[in-house]
């Protein structure tokens, strides 16, 4: 007689699942770090795509005058019926110049611009199709050759850690022997603590998970920052002669998916398989809300605004930039503008429909829409 007590809402998760599968996911990932640390190769290996197919590495003379640029690439990946629209944000030119002072400012500004755009969309009228272009995660590549974080790394992480989820990784980790990897990881962890940089914290397991899972989870967290190796080539491993993704050296082959060789599998599992949604949630609930609160607070007291903004500017260090302010009048203006746009678009639609009906009579089809 349990049927009487069965309400049936335990089927909700599968409804959610069906809906999200229909809607699809979108995810924006940023990669940052000095050039030559294997960022592009790792992204290609991670998502098994060739996002960097037509890539041209600039020559030395071109690099002399290059400034930091922000590049966006999108790709749709489908697996098991689920579509993911992956947007990759790249920062070529970071750390390249002789003088890299403030070279992270364009990146910080970019992230805040995405927040600002989302804030505007959220406060707008038509919220059905908000494009979420906020950066959900930033993979920061640390050089395996340094002795821990370099001054540039610290400056970048400090400027970004309250604005985006940061996952530090050690690139080209096949340059290190096992002991060196451990020492470097420990050094980086110590430095992150010392500089009070908040990297993305993988959430704790639920208490009702079994011991084995908890142990694995703890073990994986111990490995942060992940020491990764990327490869877009499949090589034949001499020993077992099965094809593996890896790098073929004359002294052996590094297998990208071998947990004894590098932490690539861990990174892929944590980033893609288990924590993709959590990264988006943290971006929305924590980071974006923080930005929104700061922004609106500065609007809420228009009289005091000038004073606080001025004092903010004077207290700010060189690495912080003033938050973009949306004065109340401007938001209203925006609302009015969007209203007008909507009305205009509706009129255009009606006109086009009328045109189509007219042109369909003589048998012509217009493809202008």
């Amino acid at each position: 007689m349990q049927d009487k007590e069965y309400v049936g809402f335990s089927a909700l998760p599968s409804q959610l699942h069906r809906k999200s599968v229909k809607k699809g996911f979108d995810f924006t990932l940023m990669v940052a770090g000095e050039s030559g640390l294997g960022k592009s190769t790792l992204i290609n290996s991670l998502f098994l795509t060739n996002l960097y197919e037509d890539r041209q590495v600039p020559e030395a003379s071109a690099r002399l005058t290059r400034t930091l640029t922000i590049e966006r690439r999108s790709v749709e990946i489908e697996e098991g019926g689920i579509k993911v629209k992956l947007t990759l944000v790249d920062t070529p030119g970071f750390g390249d110049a002789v003088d890299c002072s403030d070279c992270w400012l364009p990146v910080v500004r970019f992230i805040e611009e995405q927040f600002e755009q989302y804030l505007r969309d959220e406060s707008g009228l038509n919220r059905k199709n908000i494009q979420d272009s906020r950066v959900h995660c930033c993979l920061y590549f640390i050089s395996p050759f340094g002795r821990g974080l370099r001054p540039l790394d610290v400056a970048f992480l400090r400027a970004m850690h309250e604005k985006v989820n940061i996952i530090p990784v050690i690139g080209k980790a096949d340059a290190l022997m096992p002991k060196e990897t451990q020492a470097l990881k420990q050094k980086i962890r110590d430095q992150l603590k010392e500089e009070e940089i908040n990297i993305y914290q993988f959430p704790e397991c639920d208490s009702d998970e079994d011991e084995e899972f908890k142990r694995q989870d703890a073990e994986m967290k111990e490995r942060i920052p992940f020491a990764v190796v990327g490869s877009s080539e499949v090589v034949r491993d001499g020993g077992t002669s099965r094809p593996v993704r890896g790098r073929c050296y004359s002294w052996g082959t590094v297998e990208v998916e071998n947990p004894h060789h590098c932490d690539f599998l861990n990174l892929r599992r944590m980033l893609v398989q288990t924590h993709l949604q959590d990264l988006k949630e943290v971006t929305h609930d924590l980071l974006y809300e923080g930005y929104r609160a700061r922004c609106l607070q500065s609007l809420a007291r228009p009289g005091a605004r000038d004073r606080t903004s001025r004092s903010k500017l004077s207290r700010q260090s060189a690495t912080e930039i003033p938050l973009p302010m949306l004065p109340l009048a401007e938001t209203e203006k925006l609302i009015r503008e969007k209203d007008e746009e909507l009305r205009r678009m509706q009129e255009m639609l009606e006109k086009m429909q009328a045109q189509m009906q007219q042109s369909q009579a003589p048998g012509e089809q217009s493809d202008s829409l």
Partner: protein
Amino acid sequence: MDALRASPSPGSSRPSSPRMAPCEMPAPVGIEAVLDQLKIKAMKTGFEFNVMVVGQSGLGKSTMVNTLFKSKVWKSTLPGPGVPTPQTLQLHSVTHIIEEKGLKLKLTVTDTPGFGDQINNDKCWEPILGYINEQYERYLQEEILITRQRHIPDTRVHCCVYFVPPTGHCLRPLDIEFLQRLCRTVNVVPVIARADSLTIEEREAFRSRIQKDLKSHCIDVYPQKRFDEDANDRILNSKIRERIPFAVVGADQEHLVNGRCVLGRKTNWGIIEVENMAHCEFPLLRDLLIRSHLQDLKDITHNIHYENYRVVRLNESHQLPRGPGWVNLAPVNLASASAGPLTTPGPSKAHKWAQEEPKYEF
């Protein structure tokens, strides 16, 4: 005054020049014994060799020096974890006397901790240029004395090994700025550091890109083409020039491989043997620096780089050596190394090397 003294000092041993076969002598005069005499003299006085290693921290400079001279005396000169890296570059010289088969070598290694590690690395090459010029100045002061020492202590930098990080792409702006300025003052040997992160194909591609960059920016690294004396030199040095920069790996731990004890790095996928040509080009670097071109490095430093410096200094002081008392040369500002027109050196400047210019910036 000819800035370039093309003829080397007597007793130089450019590795390839064979002894010219003398015209047929009816009976051996015994001239060949001169070489033995020189050898004995050299063994008695010993050799001096000064090397400078330049590169970002963590590229294995100290390990490389240890591997080259098979001694574990050089530890990294970077300060400990609690100490912040110094804001200005501080050079650090260590001297050791190494002995092999009765021959003593007084080796001085100058390290440059902190090079290229800051956020703003502008003008980080100036302390290095200043140091090099300071050594030239010291030698010059000793040389212009009336009563000179029998053997002037030679602290001039004979070779500067520049460590290029293995990005796999091309030279970075910092590398180019540094190399452009230094290759006019000292012998520079660039190497690809930590080359065990690059596969063979990646190394070749990286190397050819670096060679292209060096050419397009008129950077003349050792062995310089224009100092080749004869055809044999040219052939030998061309072979070396094809492989520059060498892709090197340094190691100071020994491992057992196939029953042999070798220096190498042990990873979970294999052991990288430092002296194995199939793994890295360390033997080429070692041969160049020590086994074949050591004397040549010293000769070029003495005959060309030092002479250029001397000419400029003498012109600056506008005085010729005269009378009692030694020449008081005009005080020199060694730190203002790369100011002025050198900021954008173009190809025309490099060509003017042969024709000496009074206002020679170094």
